[in-house]
């Protein structure tokens, strides 16, 4: 076990290889790797900060979900998703960085990272880079993360306009998402200036279709209402759910229903 005092020491240790990164432990310990040596990043001061950057919030990777919920500067949309994660004991330990590093398309906070176009801060002894979240996810459990890189922080833009969030699970608490949806829409003087929609737990990664979102940007609410059937049909063609515990048909249907509901709640 190595418990470095600061980020630099952590990155040096990581670069030498042979360590498993651990913060909250809630994912690592479900199937604990035998004989693993843990690099504990849970108390690294650089990874525990939440900072207000004006248009965005920088959330340290080792910030727990509970700390996110209790923070006055984390956007309410993110908090809505955090409150639906598991139960208090898991939220007290689980972290923003871990939720991303686990690589699952069902990760509840990652859906919000996608819908808000978050960037990640990846640190290594070679330097820092800040990829867009959708470029970082390459496929199921496949991440653009080198063995010597550590997820250090998330740059989360604050949502503009109104937001919508829905998680469908088997029950209220302790449920892995069967499907989750988040949408953000900004309407100025009756014109849609931006719109984003993200679908979780449907495919290998969280899904977004920016080319479809562009169909409605710049349109008036009247025009958007007229285009709604075509817009939904375009998503119907674009979404290809993977097989899972629930059927592809069900997933597709719920995706489209939530998208419709998101639009109609915003006058479309």
């Amino acid at each position: 076990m190595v418990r470095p005092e600061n980020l630099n020491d952590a990155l040096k240790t990581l670069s030498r290889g042979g360590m498993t990164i651990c913060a909250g432990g809630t994912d690592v310990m479900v199937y604990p790797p035998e004989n693993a040596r843990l690099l504990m990043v849970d108390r690294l001061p650089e990874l525990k900060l939440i900072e207000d950057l004006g248009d965005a919030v920088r959330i340290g990777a080792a910030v727990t979900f509970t700390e996110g919920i209790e923070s006055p500067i984390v956007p309410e949309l993110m908090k809505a998703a955090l409150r639906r994660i598991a139960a208090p004991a898991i939220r007290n330990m689980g972290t923003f960085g871990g939720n991303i590093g686990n690589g699952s398309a069902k990760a509840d906070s990652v859906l919000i990272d996608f819908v808000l176009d978050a960037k990640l801060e990846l640190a290594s002894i070679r330097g820092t880079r800040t990829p867009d979240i959708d470029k970082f996810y390459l496929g199921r459990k496949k991440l653009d993360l080198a063995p010597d890189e550590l997820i250090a922080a998330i740059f989360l833009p604050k949502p503009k306009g109104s937001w919508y969030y829905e998680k469908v699970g088997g029950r209220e608490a302790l449920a892995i998402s069967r499907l989750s949806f988040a949408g953000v829409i900004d309407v100025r003087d009756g014109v849609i200036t931006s719109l984003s929609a993200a679908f979780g737990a449907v495919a290998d990664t969280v899904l977004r279709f920016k080319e479809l979102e562009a169909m409605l940007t710049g349109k008036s609410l009247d025009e958007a209402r007229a285009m709604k059937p075509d817009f939904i049909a375009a998503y119907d063609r674009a979404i290809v759910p993977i097989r899972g515990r629930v059927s592809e048909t069900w997933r597709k249907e719920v995706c489209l229903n939530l998208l419709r509901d998101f639009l109609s709640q915003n006058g479309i």
Partner: protein
Amino acid sequence: MIEFVLNGEKVSWEGPDTERLLDVLREDFRLTGVKCGCKEGECGACSVIFDGELANSCLIPMAKADGAEIMTIEGLRELDCFRVLDRAFAEPAAVQCGFCTPGMVLAAYSLLKKNPHPDENEIRDGLSGNLCRCTGYRAIVEAVKLAAKEGGKW
């Protein structure tokens, strides 16, 4: 060597990084109030207070316990506020087989420490990670209401 504070006492332990805190508490420290239900954070029977927060000890690797302060139900029993919880759980018969009870009591304590006057929804959220297969939860929710009403130094 991993060192931590357990129920107010400094202790040390040696072993693999990914050994579960749950197993160490039960097997090495003989604190059998910590129960093993699922080993995947789904049931809350292994709840402990970890650095002041409710946590599932089955998901805490011993490497994480290093430098931490941990309290089990055996530690809570020594606090004055335990008597309030003890009476409150007995009154509406919130205990049947008892397997979930240590975790439930710790979850209730953790909730009341943060929020001494929770409403029913907040109580149900506070206990949402703790499964009980006997009571149907109503009596447990009632117990937490009673404890909140009586109040204590949480």
